[in-house]
């Protein structure tokens, strides 16, 4: 049942007055010069017209803002691409469905990449202002273990770059903000967002996909654990 089916009773019988029509046109930016003249004439006889116009404009502005906020999401919805032999891929949906584990996997890969390479961070890492916000990663493979300070942004970029070069990373999703709060005193805004990556991989053995609850509690198809294990084992891919 849609909400519309619970329609309350209204008085739909009364025809709009001329004032209603003119206020509507002005509010909607559809008033002609003649409409304005007529409204001004009315307002000379009844100054309350201006107040009713102001109320109508205010109510419309608030409603419009709310609708605009609600439909802003449409800017993220693109048409699906048609894949030869694969029908229509619901691109945005697919990204969203698998975004959660892809993002988690991406972070794991970035971390594993450093671990498996013996902690030798690429040239240039550990420099720059972003170090200040970085967490330490211990370089365990060198003769003289030393702390390598690498920022999350640097690791992320490195992972994406090398993934693109190898053909594993197909693209990165636009970050989705899930919450934010003003820190006050001009300190800025703390934002919480989700990042996701689309990857392509060849698995030695694919058992398939299972229907499970994702981290939002909704049912989603996700690759079986075995697939993920093959992916993260490093050598196979």
């Amino acid at each position, binding site marked *: 049942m849609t*909400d519309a089916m619970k*329609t309350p009773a209204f008085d739909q019988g009364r*025809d709009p007055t001329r004032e209603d029509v003119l206020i509507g046109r002005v509010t909607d930016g559809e008033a002609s010069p003649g409409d304005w003249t007529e409204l001004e004439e009315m307002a000379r006889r009844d100054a309350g017209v201006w107040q009713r116009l102001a109320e109508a404009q205010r109510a419309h502005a608030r*409603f*419009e803002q*709310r609708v605009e906020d609600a439909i802003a999401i449409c800017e993220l919805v693109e048409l*699906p691409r048609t894949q030869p032999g694969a029908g229509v891929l619901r691109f945005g949906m697919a990204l969203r469905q698998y975004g959660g584990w892809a993002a988690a996997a991406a972070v794991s890969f970035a971390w594993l990449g450093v671990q498996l390479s013996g902690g030798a961070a690429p040239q240039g890492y550990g420099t720059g202002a972003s170090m200040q916000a970085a967490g330490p990663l211990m370089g365990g493979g060198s003769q003289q273990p030393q702390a390598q300070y690498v920022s999350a942004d640097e690791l992320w970029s490195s992972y994406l770059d090398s993934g693109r070069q190898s053909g594993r990373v197909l693209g990165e999703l636009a970050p989705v903000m899930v919450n934010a709060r*003003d820190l006050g005193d001009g300190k800025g805004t703390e934002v919480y967002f989700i990042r996701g990556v689309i990857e392509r991989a060849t698995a030695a053995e694919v058992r398939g996909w299972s229907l499970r609850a994702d981290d939002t509690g909704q049912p989603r198809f996700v690759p079986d654990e075995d697939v993920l294990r093959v992916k993260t084992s490093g050598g196979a891919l």
Partner: protein
Amino acid sequence: MNREQAKLRPGAAAGDEDSIRALWHAHRRWVAAILLAHMPRDAELEDLLQDVAVQVVRNIDRLKDPAAIRPWLRTIAVNTARTAGRRREVRRRGLHLVGAGSPGRFDGAASAAEEAARREAREEGERAMALCRMLPEEYREPLMLRAVRGMSYRQIADVLGVPVTTIETRLVRGRRMLKELMERDMARRSEEAREASAAPAKGRNEP
């Protein structure tokens, strides 16, 4: 909406991807408003938009009359929303990972009065949108479409396939009904608040 963009480009019906994409970009905002007017409360607008997008790609070759693009898109949107209503299911919205507040807008350190005014405006807008969805369809749709910035009476009339004068009349009546609903809602809230504040006092006085 750009008038040129909104036209059905010659390549769109033939399946040219760029043309279909341009068409989608020109129309998707008001398509979203139509979905808002018809979808069940717990549906996800983004999901439904995706469904509409899929239908557009699949069926664009069936659209023979370029002038009918708006009614055609509206029909897809309305059907998509109604289908979602039929298969309505309890869906738990799970993205409230941190806190319960809505992201809103952030303009730095606003004064308490400014923040209160902004919150009041936002809440009134939300109530209006929720109540608008209780109006009869013939009034709900034009109101939602008119709230999409840039939609003229003419364009709304094209989407709904009725004369401009009808749109104007429906908007006036729809706004009057919405105002009536808002006033009823406000009265109900005041009554509830009064009862809530009276209840503890009554409890204290009773033995």
